[in-house]
C-alpha cells in the first residue's frame, strides 16, 4: 500500500509522545484495576502485552458515566444557566478495537438523529481514533456475526496491525491520512508487512467461533415477541443489574437529574439501563415491570427496533455482556434459540 507505514513496537512510546504534543492521548490502561481508555501517563506501554479489550467501553470517553449538562444559579434577576466550558483540546484514542469503533459509528446515528446531542458530538468531532486489530479475541467475542472483522475497521481514522515485532499502519479516513502525513519518524510500509498483516487479520477472523444467526432476525423476533413463555425462560436467571447495558459499547440510554444546594445547582446526565424496573416506571403503572419484558426489550431493541429506526444493528459482538455478566446470561443463546413462533 502506497500510504501505509510501519513502526517497531519499542518505538510505540515515542510515537505516543509525539502525538501527545497535539492531542490528549488515551490508551488502554488498568491503573485502577480495571481496563479502560485512560489518559496516557507518558511512559507505560505495557498494555501492548496484556491488552485484549477494555472493561469500560470507549463510549465512556464520549458519553461518560455521568456529566454535567449545565449549572444553574438563582439571583435577583432570576435563574442564570451556565453551560460547561466546551473542551477544545483534541483527543486521540490509541488502540480501540474494531468492534468498539463500530459501536461509535452506531452511537453517532442516535446522537445525530433529528436533534444533535452537543455533548457527545463535540467530543466525537474532536477525536482521532487509532484502531488496533485483535490478535487474540476472547471466547465471548462474536463480532464476525455482525459483519465486523476483528483485524479490520472502516470506523477508525488509522488502523494498526500487530505484525510481531512491529505494527503495520494503514490510514482509513482523511483525518487519519493527514495525521499520518504529519507524523515524523515512520518508515514506509513494506510489501512483506502488508502480507504479514493480511495473515494476522485472517487468523484473527478464524479465531472467532461464537456465532449468532442474524438471518431474518427482525422477522424472527417479531414472530416470538408475544411468546411470554420463551422470554420468561430466557429471563429467569437475569438479576436485572446494569452490567450488560452499562458496559455495552452501543447502549446509550441515560437519565437526567438535578442537584440542588440552596439557590444553585447542577443538572447531570448519567447512564441508565432498561434492565432497571425504575427506568420506565410511571406513577400509576410500569409498562415493563416484569423482568421478562425488560429482557425482551433489550434484545429486541438491539436487533429489531434500532435497525428499523436507524438502519444499523445496535450490537458489535464485543462479548462484554457475556463475559462480565455475574450469572452468565448469554445473548447469543437467546438469539440462537428463538422459537419459530408464539
Amino acid at each position, binding site marked *: 500500500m502506497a500510504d501505509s507505514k510501519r513502526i517497531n513496537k519499542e518505538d510505540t512510546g515515542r510515537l505516543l509522545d509525539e502525538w501527545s504534543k497535539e492531542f490528549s492521548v488515551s490508551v488502554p490502561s488498568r491503573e485502577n484495576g480495571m481496563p479502560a481508555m485512560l489518559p496516557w501517563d507518558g511512559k507505560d506501554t505495557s498494555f501492548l502485552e496484556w491488552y485484549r479489550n477494555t472493561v469500560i467501553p470507549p463510549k465512556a470517553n464520549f458519553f461518560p458515566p455521568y456529566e454535567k449538562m449545565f449549572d444553574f444559579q438563582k439571583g435577583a434577576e*432570576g435563574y442564570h*444557566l451556565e453551560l460547561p466550558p466546551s473542551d477544545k483540546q483534541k483527543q486521540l484514542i490509541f488502540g480501540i478495537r474494531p468492534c468498539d469503533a463500530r459501536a461509535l459509528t452506531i452511537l453517532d446515528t442516535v446522537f445525530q438523529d*433529528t436533534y444533535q446531542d452537543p455533548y457527545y458530538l463535540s467530543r466525537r468531532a474532536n477525536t482521532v481514533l487509532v484502531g488496533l486489530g485483535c490478535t487474540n479475541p476472547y471466547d465471548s467475542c462474536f463480532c464476525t456475526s455482525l459483519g465486523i472483522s476483528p483485524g479490520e475497521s472502516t470506523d477508525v481514522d488509522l488502523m494498526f496491525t500487530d505484525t510481531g515485532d512491529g505494527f503495520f499502519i494503514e490510514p482509513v479516513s482523511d483525518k487519519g491520512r493527514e495525521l499520518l502525513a504529519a507524523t515524523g519518524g515512520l518508515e514506509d510500509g513494506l510489501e512483506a508487512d502488508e502480507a504479514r498483516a493480511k495473515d494476522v487479520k485472517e487468523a484473527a477472523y478464524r479465531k472467532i467461533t461464537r456465532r449468532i444467526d442474524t438471518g431474518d432476525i427482525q422477522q424472527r423476533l417479531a414472530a416470538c415477541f408475544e411468546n411470554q413463555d420463551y422470554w420468561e425462560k430466557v429471563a429467569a436467571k437475569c438479576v436485572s443489574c446494569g452490567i450488560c447495558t452499562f458496559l455495552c459499547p452501543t447502549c446509550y440510554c441515560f*437519565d437526567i437529574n438535578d442537584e440542588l444546594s440552596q439557590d444553585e445547582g447542577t443538572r447531570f446526565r448519567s447512564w*441508565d439501563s432498561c434492565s432497571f424496573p425504575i*427506568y420506565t416506571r*410511571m*406513577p400509576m403503572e410500569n409498562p415493563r415491570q416484569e423482568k421478562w419484558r425488560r429482557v425482551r426489550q433489550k434484545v429486541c*431493541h438491539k436487533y429489531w*427496533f434500532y435497525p428499523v429506526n436507524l438502519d444499523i444493528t445496535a450490537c458489535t459482538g464485543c462479548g462484554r455482556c457475556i463475559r462480565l455478566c455475574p450469572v452468565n446470561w448469554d445473548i447469543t443463546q437467546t438469539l440462537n434459540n428463538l422459537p419459530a413462533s408464539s
Partner: protein
Amino acid sequence: MTTDVSQRFLARDNVYLPHIAVIEKIIDETPGVVTLHFNFKDEKLREEFTFKPGQFGEYSVFGIGEATFCISSSPTRRDHLEFAVQRVGKVTNALHRLDVGSEMGFRGPYGNGFPLDSFAGKNLVFVAGGIGLAPLRSLIWNVIDDRDKYEKIDIVYGARSPADLCFKYDLDAWGNDSSINMVTTVDKGDASWTGREGFVPQVLEQAAPSARNAVAIVCGPPIMIRFTFPVLEKLGFTPEQMFTTLEKRMKCGIGKCGRCNIGNLYVCRDGPVFSFAQIKGFISSEY
C-alpha cells in the same frame, strides 16, 4: 421560523438547555391537578414561539428535575401558554409548589402533534378521560377557532367523580356551543350530580357517533384507551381513523434517552400522537 425542527427555538444551540419561563397564573382544576399559565422571559421567543396542538414540552423546576407535559392551550390563543399537572411525584409536587411569578425551565415544543391538516372536512369525535383532556383541549380550541374547516364535533369526556372533572370552564363553554355535541360523564356521581354516570367507553357506545368521514381522537388513562378502541371498532372506525396521544416515562423528549418506546416507536420522537394502526401490534403487550 425555520422549517428544520431540530433548530427550532434552541437555547444557545444546546437542545438540552431550557428557556426560562415565568408562571403567570395558577388555576386549581381538581384536588390533585393545577393548570399553570406561563410565558417566556425572553421577549423575542415570546413573539416567535409556535407549536402544534398535541405537542409537548419538558418543564424544569431547577434543582428538582424535568418532567413532560403536553401544551394544553391552543396555538390559536397565544398570549400565554398553558399546561396541566397532576401531582404524582417529585417534579409534579415541585411544580405544585410554584407561585405566580416563579421561574421554571421549558424546552420544546417536541413531538409530532395532531395531523390537523388531515382532519379538515371531517367529523371529529373526541374521547377523553380525566387529565387526558389536556392535549385534546389544545386541539379542540384550535378546531373551534377554525370551526368552518371541520364538520360535526362530538366530545365525550369523563372522570372518576364530579370533583375530578378538569377544565370545567371549558366543559361549560363547549356544552353551550350549539355546534358541538358534548357529553360529560362520571364513573360515580355525588348528591349534587345531575349529569350522566358511566364509564367513558360505555357512554361512547351509547352516544354512537358515526364513523363515516370521521376521525376519533382518544386520550385518557391507559385502561380507558384500551377499552375505548374496541368500542370505536364496533362503531365502524378503522385503525387509521383512530388517534391517541400517549404518555410514557420520558427524560430527554427528543428520542435519545431511550425509555419511552413502544416497539420501535418512541413516544417523544414518533409521537405522542399515534394512529391505532401504528401501535396496535404492541398495545396488548406494552401499553
